[in-house]
């Protein structure tokens, strides 16, 4: 391979100063792709759009589930309901939650990931056991979307 790391730094500078978002290069049996990271983020603003997101989720569930939604595991790992062994759980059945309320922790590869309710309402059911291995997308809790008192 004749293309050095320094060469690529030069090519990156060219891309930076250009009006292009991506550059692909094939030479010497080498495939190189340079991408402006802004290019990837340019595509995402539609996703966290506050107005469209709740509309999309409320449209999805079956009509009977209209008033409740599931908090699903954002990733595979071990689910914990409490911040530490012996401590009271983050939430119980009946707890009121906001979108960013932490309802549990999923440990994966030694990293603790806070799981947030993602919706405003009241916990009506706890589906996943403390310490259980949960898969990606597995329902953890059921939250009624009634406004908490």
């Amino acid at each position, binding site marked *: 391979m004749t293309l050095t790391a320094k060469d690529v730094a030069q090519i990156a*500078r060219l891309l930076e100063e250009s009006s292009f978002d991506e550059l692909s290069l*094939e030479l010497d049996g*080498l495939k190189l792709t340079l991408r*402006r990271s802004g290019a990837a983020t340019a595509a995402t603003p539609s996703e966290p759009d506050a107005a469209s997101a709740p509309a999309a989720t409320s449209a999805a569930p079956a009509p009977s589930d209209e008033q409740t939604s599931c908090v699903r595991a954002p990733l595979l790992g071990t689910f914990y309901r409490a911040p*530490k062994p012996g401590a009271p759980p983050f939430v119980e059945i009946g707890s009121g939650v906001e979108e960013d309320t932490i309802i549990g922790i999923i440990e994966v590869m030694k990293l603790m990931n806070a799981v947030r309710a993602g919706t405003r309402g009241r916990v009506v059911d706890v589906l996943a056991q403390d310490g259980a291995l949960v898969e990606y997308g597995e329902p953890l809790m059921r939250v009624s979307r009634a406004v908490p008192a």
Partner: protein
Amino acid sequence: MTLRRILIANRGEIATRIIRTCRRLGIETVLAASEADRDSMAARLADRTVCIGPARPSDSYLKVDAVVQAALAARVDAIHPGYGFLSERPALAQACEEQGVIFIGPTAAQIASVGDKLRARAQAQAADVPIAPGGAVGSTAEATVLARSVGLPLLVKAVGGGGGRGMKRVERLEDLPQAIHLAESEAGAAFGDARVYIERFVTRGRHIEVQVLGDGYGQVIHLGERDCSVQRRYQKLIEETPAPGLSESCRHRLHEAAIRFAARMAYRGAGTVEFLVDLEHEAFYFLEMNARIQVEHPVTEAVTGVDFVAEQIAIAAGEGLRLRQFDVRPRGCALECRVNAEDPARDFQPSPGHVRAVSWPGGEGIRLDTHVEAGTVIPPFYDSLLAKIIAHGADRDAALERMWQAVAATRIQGVVTNLAFHSTVLANREFQAGGVDTGFVPRLRERAAISVEVHLA
């Protein structure tokens, strides 16, 4: 005494790494493996494998009695704990001392005294090694008062922790209680000790650590420093030695401080004293001491020619230090890239799975430490490290160029890896210039930096 048979109480690449040295030394190896690792590469390389429990670390690799039982049943002379798991739990070293099995590492008392980060801070002070402002966290009210005097931003760290786990950065005072809460839970689960403390966050700092070896009687030598500033979420991604762009006087002061710290406690075995170097002032603070072999030890091995596992074994066998300070003559520069099963596009989320095919790099100046081959399953229970690529060259440019080529030649199919992250960093001008601070990776992601993917076609 000569060690004839060693139990390896670990898994993954470090288990294969320890086995290699043992083989060279003619020492038999017994691997203590979980059910998930029965068919691992390490299990195949070891002379014998003993299954110590189910996949979950708390049911196997973290079970002191299971490990000690395996050691006694296999009639080994010593246990090598590797890094992570029980390596820095005084309970294993203690149980070994009681059962008459040699623990390849420091004494239980030394592990306990550096493992408690608050005690370690006090010891640093006593050894005339500077520490960052901070202290213990009691009630929320006390924590807030202390936080005001320490200043923001600050870090909430686990008293029983290390390696960045349980660590939370706090920008606003009102976020402190929740950060403490989360840090406590992470610390409790990871280290069995939920206590946390707070420390000032140095905004423009470099993470530089000094490798030491001690004979356990007060003799300590250093084997140079490593710069580990390329980190995300306080997890190291690229390490190198020597630290680029450091003044000789600062380098010398770091080495001396590490020796003072380790010698004061008559440290035994291989250890690393970590510092945070304040870029603007060339001042430095003690962070912690790691009382074990470090993931990134191969860069130091590359430039010094010292086999750290062999030295650990020699010290454990009572041979003392086989090197004097002036025998340590580092040659050239070395870098290490940690290839992890994680997705940089999804905030480095771990990506366990089944490795379908791999193609590893080789050639002059390249070393590869791995436990992964085609067919390897990466379980969700352990860390995400797949391999370490180490590149050595006559100078930093040469080492960097070799690393760039090695990363381009690496292919892993089946799990998402951070290889493109490595090529992006290696082709980055700031990194190429050398001496980036710990804010480098976050900054890369904030500004619209150019990402680089490279493959040999």
